[in-house]
């Protein structure tokens, strides 16, 4: 029974991760990623680590991939025309070789008999917490700091550059959607009173058609 479940989900994990890199449609690729993560979570449960399995679904499938999907839909990404597997195949093979080499190096340096079997104590909540918060506290804190740096960096990168008039006490430009282009109202062809140098484009039927798309 256990072997059967393992086989089903191992095959599913490998097949769906191939779909992730090979499928043309970003939405299908993302959904296959969810399937991959779910299958890996099932494998965690089979290994006797239901906590890791639940976290895998909660953090990756439930939050991070939702953000992927959010960005894909927000940017309305379409199917890519070229076969994605073709030009990336070489790089992918190189990555796989490096990964296999690293795992082999670990085996070679430590010696296979030195590897410990997964025990319930090792993968249980308590074992995991002891490892994280007692044995490896400093690396754990450093990873936390790294994540904080990434968050701050993302915030800085996403922040709009301050408007030229903002410091001089002029009205804040709240009606700007993206910061670099004034919102165009096709029905109003008057110049923006707060930025007379940027004249709004006059009413054009073409602009309407663009907007309707």
């Amino acid at each position, binding site marked *: 029974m256990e072997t059967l479940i393992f086989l089903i989900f191992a095959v599913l994990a490998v097949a769906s991760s191939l779909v992730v890199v090979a499928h043309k449609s970003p939405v299908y690729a993302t959904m296959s990623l969810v399937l991959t993560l779910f299958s890996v979570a099932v494998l965690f449960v089979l290994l006797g680590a239901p*906590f890791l399995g639940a976290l895998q679904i909660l953090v990756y499938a439930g939050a991070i991939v*939702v953000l992927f999907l959010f960005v894909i839909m927000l940017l309305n990404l379409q199917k890519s025309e070229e076969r994605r597997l073709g030009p990336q195949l070489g790089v992918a093979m190189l990555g796989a070789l490096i990964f296999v080499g690293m795992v082999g190096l670990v085996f070679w340096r430590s010696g296979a008999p030195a590897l410990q079997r997964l025990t319930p104590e090792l993968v249980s909540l308590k074992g995991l917490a002891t490892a994280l918060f007692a044995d490896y506290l400093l690396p754990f804190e450093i990873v936390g700091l790294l994540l904080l740096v990434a968050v701050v960096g993302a915030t800085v990168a996403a922040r709009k550059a301050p408007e030229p008039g903002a410091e001089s006490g002029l009205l804040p430009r709240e009606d700007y959607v993206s910061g670099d282009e004034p919102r165009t109202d096709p029905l109003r062809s008057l110049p923006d009173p707060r930025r007379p140098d940027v004249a709004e484009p006059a009413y054009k039927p073409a602009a309407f058609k663009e907007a309707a798309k």
Partner: protein
Amino acid sequence: MNPDLTATLLKYAVMFGVFINVAPIMNWVERRACAYIQDRPGPNRVGPLGLFQPLADAVKFMFKEDVTPAAADKLLYLMAPVLALLPAFTTFVIIPFGPDITVGGRTIPLVVAPVDTGVLLFLALSSLAVYSLVLAGYASNNKFSLLGGIRASAQLISYELALTLSVLAVLLPVNSFRLSDIVAYQQAHVWNFIPQILGFFVFLVASFAETNRLPFDLPEAESELIAGFHTEYSAMRFAAFFQAEYTNMAALAALGVTLFFGGWSLPGVHLTGWLGAVVGLATLVAKIIVCMAVFVWVRWTFPRFRYDQLMRLGWKVLLPLSILNLILVAAMTLAGWL
């Protein structure tokens, strides 16, 4: 057949029976209650007090034309309602509904899946519910649906943080992820909503957002998006979304009463055996009904939030409040007050 498997299947059947009937009953309650709030009769023609209206609706759902838009992404379009039902009918497996009972010499805990990671499993499964909304929005190939799907993903991500943090605070003094331990803790002490009133309110507001109920029903805001992510769906596929929404509400209500209002237990009542099981299940259902009534009451009382207000509330009010609550509860636990 394996007795453990039989017990699990029977327990699942009991909970399934409770949770599948939520949608038709709530359909009637919601419409009658909103009619009462708005001072009009509501559906009162089919059967006494209009009680058979859900049956009429079910027949209508079955015989309506099932439309698939020509430009839709067929596979994802057909998959989305199924994906909506899956988390809805799996999350309640970790809700305990009574004390342990003994049948033929073996002790059976009255929870479908007595796993150590209880609450985490609930959160993990319920966090998958968003995919059905997002995929329905994307696959319909309709701009209103797409907007609804995008809103759903952003909204669920934002409120899940506050929800999870408020749940985490409940776990701290109990030292366990098991909901049955949380119920036992509340039997020994007081119901959690008294010491953790702040966490309870964060949980309440976040659960309105998680279930896409007014005042946070932005993914399907009728006045802006027609019906949002399920605009294109009709017949039984629409019914699947409807069923999933109400089942999710009931499951979240069940989680809420288990975390904050003692679950199946009543203060001062310690029944065991079959009587305890029946009383426990009835108590849990009664508490869920009260919660659902609050859901309905709130829906027809408050106007809808604007989208930026929703995001501001989630990130700038609820999240800091839930972190504050977590720190307070951690300090109280350390001080030995809980």
